[in-house]
């Protein structure tokens, strides 16, 4: 990635907490689910956020889009093209400059024809037809209800919605589950095409194989934060090129690598260790790991580990 490319999305020290009842308690307390997360996406670039299920990846997307539930508290900084993305600014951008691709067809109104939904509040019929044609959705699809769509059609409808207004930033939340390999590849190639035209794509997925195929950079998500961001090449080269012990373990656990799991589980959001979140599963742990762990630049990537070299 060359230096002159503009940063479209920049997230710094994002913290998300929910004010809620904990198990067995009668008073609402704050449950912090995303901790000091930093990530950035440049124009023409696909950044994949990978991590296991339940690590809060979707919440990252929802906080950028400002669609978190009312009891969420958001801290830190989110910038779009260098300007702070506050409630007011995001309203101007959503559906036009920033598009969201949700996980499934459940995100469509069950009682509305898909063409009207894809047109949304900003589009028009001609543009919708044009986009549908591009994704091989013929005119019969226009007047179908979401429950009548097949998995692949639903996926293409959701992507069509996202590209209606030619956005500068696309945030895709698990765009591939439920699709067979060919369909998944087709979807990812669609993203690649969009990125090659200059769109910045933030793709959230638990499928690292697919991330390998199209992403320019990969961010590894663990226990509510990003522990490492590095170029996809580093991940393909293997653990020796990675910076964080969790990313290394993550790659080792892949079927085509050593298929080797590591001990332990991700810590629960309500019960986090004070220092490094990975410390209790880490083979290199020492006293330094109990302190504050900043995100630092290392060999062209970023890592949140004091020992990484």
């Amino acid at each position, binding site marked *: 990635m060359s230096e002159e490319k503009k940063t479209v999305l920049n997230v710094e020290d994002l913290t998300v907490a929910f004010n809620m009842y904990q198990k067995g308690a009668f008073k609402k307390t704050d449950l912090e689910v995303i901790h000091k997360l930093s990530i950035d996406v440049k124009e023409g670039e696909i950044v994949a956020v990978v991590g296991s299920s339940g690590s809060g990846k979707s919440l990252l997307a929802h906080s950028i889009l400002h669609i978190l539930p009312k009891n969420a508290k958001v801290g830190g900084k989110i910038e779009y093209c260098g300007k702070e993305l506050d409630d007011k600014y995001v309203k101007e951008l959503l559906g036009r400059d920033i598009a969201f691709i*949700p996980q499934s067809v459940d995100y469509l109104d069950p009682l509305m024809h898909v063409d009207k939904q894809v047109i949304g509040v900003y589009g028009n019929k001609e543009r919708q037809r044009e986009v549908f044609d591009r994704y091989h959705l013929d005119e019969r699809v226009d007047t179908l209800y979401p429950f009548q769509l097949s998995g692949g059609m639903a996926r293409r409808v959701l992507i069509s919605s996202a590209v209606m207004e030619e956005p500068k930033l696309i945030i895709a939340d698990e765009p591939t589950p439920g699709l067979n390999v060919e369909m998944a590849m087709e979807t990812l190639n669609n993203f690649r095409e969009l990125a090659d035209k200059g769109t910045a794509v933030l793709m959230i997925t638990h499928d690292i194989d697919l991330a390998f195929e199209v992403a320019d950079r990969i961010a590894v998500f663990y226990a509510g934060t990003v522990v490492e961001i590095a170029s996809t090449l580093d991940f393909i080269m293997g653990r020796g090129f990675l910076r964080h012990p969790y990313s290394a373990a993550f790659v080792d656990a892949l079927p085509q690598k050593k298929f080797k799991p590591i001990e332990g589980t991700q810590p629960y959001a309500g019960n986090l260790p004070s220092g490094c979140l990975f410390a209790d599963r880490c083979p290199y742990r020492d006293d330094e790991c109990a302190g504050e762990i900043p995100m630092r630049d290392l060999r062209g990537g970023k890592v949140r580990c004091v020992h990484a070299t």
Partner: protein
Amino acid sequence: MNKKMKNVISESIRMALLLIAVSIIAFFLVINSPIDPLTSYVGPESTLSQEARDEIAEYWGLYDPPAERFMSWVGNIVRGDWGDSITYKRPVKDVISERFSYSFGLMACTWVISGLLGFVVGIISGMREGGWFDRITKYFCLMVKSAPTFWIGLLVLVIFAVELKWFPIGMAVPLGKPANEVTFWDRLYHMALPVITLSIISMSDIMLYTRQKLIEIINSDFILYARARGENEKQIVLRHVIRNIALPAITVQFASFSELFGGMALAENVFSYPGIGTATTAAAVNGDVPLLLGIAVCSAVFVFAGNLMANVLYGVFDPRIKEGVITYEHTHAHSH
């Protein structure tokens, strides 16, 4: 089409079974009640001799076995002979059709007003969940739902008729006015208070339902996605919320015919409104068996018609049911 025909047939069978069951139960309740049809016919102070009484009872078939009496009553009903009302000294059919025409206006107005008002208020308070408007309307509705109908009727009567004198205190037409001079406005004016009372009561159901359903929908994924695509609150309500709530709300409103009917009977008594409700009470008090049975059968038909319309509407308007993807029971499992 085949499926539709099947539905129509099965609904018709259900209707027939319901009517048979209602007639049997009503009939046997009445003949086992302490009401003596003969005494209520001739009056308690009658000087009729015992022989004459026996003769009439014999002629009426009062000594026949219950099953035989039931069958002869059913036979007459089918032939169109509903008997004569003792209370009104007129054929039951005439009494019911006249009374129903009064009550029908009352129920139709109530049904429309409570439906629209409940729907709109439910949407507003659901959108502002936890806000002052939501809290006030929610507690008001819960209060109304727990209060007896006649008590609310009396309250409305005291406030609007006695204290403020805005509306007449009762009846369907002005007292002492010749029937041919009674205008449409007179009737409407007299209907106002019972309609207000009934609307307040019926509204709470539909309002609480709409509110609950809205909160459910507003937290669903497709609303989240609509937000993410830049739709504002107003667009979300107009484009998605109303569409998704209207159908279940209309269904609930149709299914509420039974409560509407029950509430009407009480409200009519409070306002001395000459509808089917007051006729029912009069029939019960006077031991007017033919009228009582006639009303029981008619009200069963009325309530069943409401439920039937609810079922049919769901099938017509929800594309998922129309295509047979999910069944009516399916959608109702979580709406009730």
